[in-house]
């Protein structure tokens, strides 16, 4: 850069000079005076001439057509200010560049600074001018000026200061050249670059280039960030080793070698240890670059930091494994506990279920569950209740808990406990309806068994209590008689009467013995629980009963019809079956209707998988509405029959119940009686 010093031409001489050679003189910028001829342009440096003469020549009338031409050619505007006179000259082109016509606005420095210069550029501009005064060295600056449209445009501004012979500033000359397009492009480029860097930084994407020939590594700026090394780091094959463990290093170089030798792209993931010792995962997508001969000369790659992704992936994998394990545990638990879990997702209207579902209903995996659809599995008596529960749960979020019996697709009977609950979110909206169905068949079976045994125990207790009272009653009957008899005998003097009383005492004693025998027989039945059970032929037992009763049957001309074909045998204690049949048949004979011959029909069969025996007679019958509850009680007799002891049916019932069965009676007075034994 050259700076104009103190010397200028005197105006008169200059003018004649100009006129002579028909030149226009222009002082442009800081250093030159340019002469324009019609045909040529000469640039002459104005050197020290006429020193000391400058004071009276302050201003040159330089605006000529040629100047305008130059201005137009350079697309530049010019302005100058004389520090001595304060005179200012602003070229029309200057205003033209801002969209103004000549004289439309004031050509003053004040106007320029206050109204045209961008506020943000004012400081920079005044600094530049100040600096110019101090150093006389000038720097090109870029400023924004306001156009007539009110928009700011970029200009390159250059100023120079001219000094007088004493070194005092005489005037300042400035030019502006529009650079708006260039500046905008530059700004755009800068912005794109920033954006690119930012994007690379955010996406943690970096580039590298490996020169196969020179073995040089070239890293993009972001790669330094990724590797966490300072920008001074010089990447090379040797120093790069520090970032990898041996296996990874081998893997990477294998990949690169293969890329070079086979000219193929690659896409790999590898872990690195950064300069700061952090573990990172990178994805590298690279491709070879070949020369004209098809030889690979570069390997270029884009690298992305995928550490977070990888971590998430690992976490996800771990989570998934855990989930799978939990799922397995849950399934096992469900299977072991026999619990079916169903979930109805309210927003999506989706029903979810666990695998145990198929086991519960014993259906194939193609069966799709449905709360209402599955009602078909349930026994009819539970369907309405269950449906009501489902409806109430849907309409009023009412929880439920019920037991029900169902029949599976394979026809097995199961007991289940069904629990329904609604799960609400923070806004009190039902989001899930949970239903669990637990197979409680075992529990229920035990419960029913327990109920049954409780009933048996209660029955047995009742019988025992009854037995105790009977015992005391019957013993007391006899002992009372004995004590009364003895009392009478004590006071009796008449020997004949005494003998009579003694005979009576004998009878009472016999009766007491008889009673004791009965009681011991009953006790025998009740305590003999370990009788041997075997397969007993009913017909065989019947035959031996017939032998015992043959005399009675013959005498009463009783007719007996039997049919044991439907169930010829039972698993039973033989002695019990004989005793039971003997008691029932002899009862039928004993209480035959006086006006007809006894007809007894006996048959066996199977009901609900259990053998039954039915004995039907046409005898006297019993009024069961009056005596039903007492018929099997001890010493209950219903007819004034000399042989009625009131012990047979009591023992029969005891024997049957001690074997876990039961006996039922139906009877119509005067028509006959039916005894039915469920073994």
């Amino acid at each position: 850069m050259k700076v104009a010093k103190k010397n200028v031409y005197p105006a008169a001489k200059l003018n004649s000079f100009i006129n002579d050679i028909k030149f226009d003189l222009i002082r442009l910028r800081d250093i030159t005076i340019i002469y324009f001829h019609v045909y040529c342009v000469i640039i002459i440096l104005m050197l020290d001439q006429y020193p000391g003469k400058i004071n009276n020549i302050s201003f040159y009338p330089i605006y000529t057509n040629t100047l305008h031409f130059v201005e137009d050619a350079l697309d530049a505007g010019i302005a100058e200010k004389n520090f001595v006179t304060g005179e200012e000259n602003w070229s029309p082109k200057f205003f033209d560049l801002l969209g103004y016509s000549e004289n439309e606005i004031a050509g003053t420095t004040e106007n320029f600074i206050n109204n045209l210069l961008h506020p943000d550029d004012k400081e920079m501009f005044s600094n530049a001018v100040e600096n110019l005064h101090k150093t006389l060295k000038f720097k090109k600056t870029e400023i924004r000026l306001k156009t007539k449209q009110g928009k700011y445009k970029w200009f390159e501004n250059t100023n120079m200061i001219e000094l007088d012979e004493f070194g005092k500033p005489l005037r300042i000359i400035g030019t502006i050249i529009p650079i708006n397009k260039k500046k905008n492009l530059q700004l755009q480029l800068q912005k794109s670059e920033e954006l690119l860097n930012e994007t690379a930084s955010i996406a943690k994407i970096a580039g590298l280039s490996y020169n196969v020939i020179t073995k040089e590594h070239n890293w993009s700026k972001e790669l330094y960030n990724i590797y966490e090394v300072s920008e001074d780091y010089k990447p090379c094959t040797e120093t790069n080793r520090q970032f990898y463990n041996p296996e990874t290093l081998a893997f990477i170089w294998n990949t690169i070698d293969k890329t070079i030798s086979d000219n193929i792209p690659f896409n790999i993931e590898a872990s690195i240890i950064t300069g700061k010792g952090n573990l990172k995962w990178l994805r590298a997508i690279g491709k070879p670059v070949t020369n004209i001969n098809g030889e690979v000369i570069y390997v270029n790659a884009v690298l992305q930091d995928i550490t977070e992704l990888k971590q998430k992936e690992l976490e996800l994998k771990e989570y998934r494994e855990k989930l799978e394990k939990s799922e397995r545990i849950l399934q096992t638990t469900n299977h072991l506990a026999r619990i079916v879990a169903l979930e109805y997702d309210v927003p999506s209207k989706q029903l979810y279920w666990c695998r145990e579902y198929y086991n519960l209903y014993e259906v194939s995996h193609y069966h799709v569950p449905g709360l209402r659809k599955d009602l078909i599995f349930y026994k009819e008596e539970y369907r309405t209740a269950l449906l009501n529960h489902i409806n109430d749960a849907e309409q009023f979020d009412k929880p439920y808990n019920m037991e029900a019996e169902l029949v599976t697709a394979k026809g097995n009977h199961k007991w289940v406990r069904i629990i329904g609950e609604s799960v609400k979110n923070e806004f009190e909206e039902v989001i899930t309806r949970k239903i669990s169905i637990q197979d409680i068949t075992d529990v229920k079976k035990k419960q029913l068994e327990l109920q049954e045994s409780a009933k048996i125990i209660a029955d047995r207790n009742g019988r025992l209590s009854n037995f105790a009272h009977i015992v005391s009653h019957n013993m007391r009957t006899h002992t009372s008689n004995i004590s009364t008899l003895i009392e009478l005998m004590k006071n009796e003097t008449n020997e004949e009467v005494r003998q009579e009383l003694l005979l009576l005492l004998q009878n009472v004693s016999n009766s007491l013995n008889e009673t004791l025998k009965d009681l011991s027989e009953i006790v025998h039945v009740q305590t003999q629980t370990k009788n041997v059970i075997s397969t007993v032929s009913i017909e065989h037992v019947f035959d031996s009963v017939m032998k015992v009763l043959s005399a009675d049957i013959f005498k009463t001309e009783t007719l007996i019809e039997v049919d044991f074909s439907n169930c010829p045998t039972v698993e039973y204690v033989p002695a019990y079956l004989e005793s039971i049949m003997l008691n029932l048949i002899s009862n039928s004979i004993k209480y035959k209707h006086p006006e007809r011959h006894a007809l007894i029909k006996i048959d066996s069969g199977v009901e609900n998988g259990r053998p039954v025996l039915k004995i039907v007679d046409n005898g006297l019958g019993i009024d069961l509405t009056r005596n039903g509850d007492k018929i099997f009680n001890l010493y209950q007799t219903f007819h004034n029959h000399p042989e009625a002891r009131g012990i047979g049916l009591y023992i029969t019932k005891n024997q049957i119940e001690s074997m876990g069965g039961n006996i039922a009676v139906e009877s119509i007075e005067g028509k006959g009686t039916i005894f039915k034994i469920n073994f």
Partner: protein
Amino acid sequence: MKPILCFVDNDEVYLFLMRKMIEKKYKDSKMLEFYNGLEAIEFIKENIHDTPLLPDIIFLDINMPVMDGWEFIESFTRIKHKITKPITIYMVSSSVDDADIERAKNIQEISDFICKPMTIEKVNQIFGVTEYIS
């Protein structure tokens, strides 16, 4: 007038002993014997308007075939309004079952519950009471 005593019991030995006792101690009394409740109630029904034949005191056993003591009381209650004669009923039983005693106490028609054996003292007491009432 001779009081009429009625024994309803299926125990023949007991009936015999009572007969002996009454014959000895209360020669003035007349004794009726029935083997069960049905026989007794039918006798009463037959003679319901023939007051002199009806018993003054009934000794009723509980456990009897055909119709037991309780059933007899039920039947008796149904026809009681037709009987003009006051009849005192005693439940007599070998039973020492509290349930039986309690049940007897709650029946208005039953004056008392007597546990067997029936002794002369008990009969005396009853006669004392009866005489006092009459």
